[in-house]
């Protein structure tokens, strides 16, 4: 299973990056718990800030931006974490999702995470990102994760945060597994290891040969285009 984090870490050692890493780690163990292999990767939106501005202003899509969009298309599940400024996700983060191609998230489970100074910012992800990601046809899992300064400082806060992360990542992973026809198996089950049940497609997780949604590359693949005679018929 390929899980991609698309997160906006504004400083080098930001709490947003810390939270994204914690979520990816929890998701990894959840996937391994059902006997599948997992690949995780990270797109830091900060590194795309100029490219996103250029695209917004001029429509020019740089190669690095194309590559990041392609990573999203290839992923089976998405984790997206943002800092919250003035009760809304920082503009740079939403710009990424506002510029990506329509329907990029079709059929993909998405987990929202956010960070902020105080709990007053906790519903920003729900209020702003959930409708945006749903518009992109992503399937946003019910639990979102918000981490405020307290959660990093106190023992109890840390426990609560970890529990929430566990809950949200289990939702993400079991949903991905269900979508791709892999029966989730409870952690510790002896049958889990090595024998995931595949009900559709073949081979690698999330890459069924049939019924696959076309990606941007497929649009230019002679096998996937609409033959002209059909266009002509209207």
């Amino acid at each position, binding site marked *: 299973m390929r899980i991609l984090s698309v997160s906006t870490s504004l400083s080098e050692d930001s709490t947003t990056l810390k939270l994204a890493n914690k979520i990816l780690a929890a998701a990894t163990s959840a996937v391994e718990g059902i006997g599948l292999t997992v690949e995780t990767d990270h797109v830091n939106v900060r590194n795309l800030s100029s490219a996103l501005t250029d695209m917004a202003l*001029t429509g020019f899509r740089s190669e690095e931006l194309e590559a990041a969009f392609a990573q999203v298309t290839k992923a089976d599940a998405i984790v997206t974490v943002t800092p919250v400024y003035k009760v809304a996700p920082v503009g740079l983060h939403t710009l990424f999702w506002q510029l990506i191609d329509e329907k990029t998230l079709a059929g993909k489970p998405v987990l929202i995470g956010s960070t902020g100074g105080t709990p007053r910012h906790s519903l920003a992800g729900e209020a702003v990102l959930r409708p945006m990601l749903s518009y992109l046809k992503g399937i946003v899992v019910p639990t979102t994760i918000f981490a405020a300064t307290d959660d990093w400082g106190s023992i109890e806060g840390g426990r609560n945060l970890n529990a929430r992360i566990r809950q949200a990542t289990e939702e993400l992973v079991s949903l991905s597994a269900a979508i791709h026809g892999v029966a989730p198996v409870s952690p510790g089950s002896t049958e889990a290891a090595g024998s995931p049940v595949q009900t559709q497609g073949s081979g690698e997780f999330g890459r069924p040969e049939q019924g696959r949604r076309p990606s941007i590359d497929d649009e230019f693949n002679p096998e996937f285009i609409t033959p002209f005679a059909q266009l002509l018929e209207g």
Partner: protein
Amino acid sequence: MEFGIFSIGDVTTDPTDGTTVTEHQRIKNTVEIAKKAEEVGLDVFATGQHHNPPFVAPANPPVLLSNIAAQTEKLQLSTATTLITTTDPVRIAEDYSYAQHLSDGRISLIMGRGNTGPVYPWFGKDIRSGIPLAVENYNLLYRLWREKNIDWEGKFRTPLNGFTVTPTPLDDVPPFVWHGSIRSPEIAEQAAYYGDGFFHNNIFWPTSHTARMVKLYRQRYEYYGHGTASQAIVGLGGQVFMRKNSQDAVNEFRPYFDNAPVYGHGPSLEDFSTQTPLTVGSPQQVIERTLSFRDWAGDYQRQLFLIDHAGLPQKTVLEQLDLLGEEVIPVLRKEFAASRPADVPDAPTHESLVIRHREGRDPIPGGGPGSRAYADRQARAAEQNDTQGADRR
């Protein structure tokens, strides 16, 4: 292979001195640029079609092209692009046919859809129907140039009953048509279906994307049986700014780039130069960059450069033409020709199209006998017959 320039006719303030040419001056300058293009040995001048400021490219390009035709001898005159979506195909057929006669066959067209939403409703159209408009309108235009007494009915214009275009195309051979698109695979497919040319403006997107579009067109051209993929008719844009010394070119062009319409105030000149075909430097750098297009596009037939935009003074534009004519194009001609396989066709001209027509080798839309498309159609028809037979049994 054809080399030339294409203009969008923008009236842009020169950012270095704040002056703006009048529309009248810009129009006269455009004619001067086209004449100069012929004088320095370029093959093609192409104009855009525009209906809104700050552009004074003609709303009906044959007006400008005919005027230039009257003042030149050999220059091929093209559009880049003709708006096939918002222009009545009947008027395209009539006006370009007329210009083709006036110019003794020196007219060709690049079809485009136009990307400015507000323009569509001015002509009673809707940008959301951009592709269906391009498909239906071109199909009608294609017939208008080849058939008489046409009965036709479609979605987007009033029906025709017993209509014949006048004048009919010169020597019964319509102007050559390219289909231009930056992003839409449907248009590459359309070009391939008819055996027409495919043109990519090659200015705003990374070459990896342009390469994908060209490859799709080539594969489908072969599928429809008009020739091998390497024989498909490909045209590319590009934009250059040159001085003998490359650093002088960068310094002089930077303010124009930074304030240019469309991409100004966006990516840096350096990023844009790395990731798109823009080349700002010495003639030698332009030669090397342009020759490298062949690496990802294959051997192609038409290369157009954008050189007269963003408020560049007329004097500078004419100097660019001198550099193109004296230093760049002669080398490109030689180098491209040297490695071009013998079976890759040259850019079509009226003369070559007349020969093709007389020899009965005109492309058959959708693919004639011997093509894979034809075989697929036969197989599908046979399958349907089988199913119907089975039903009857």
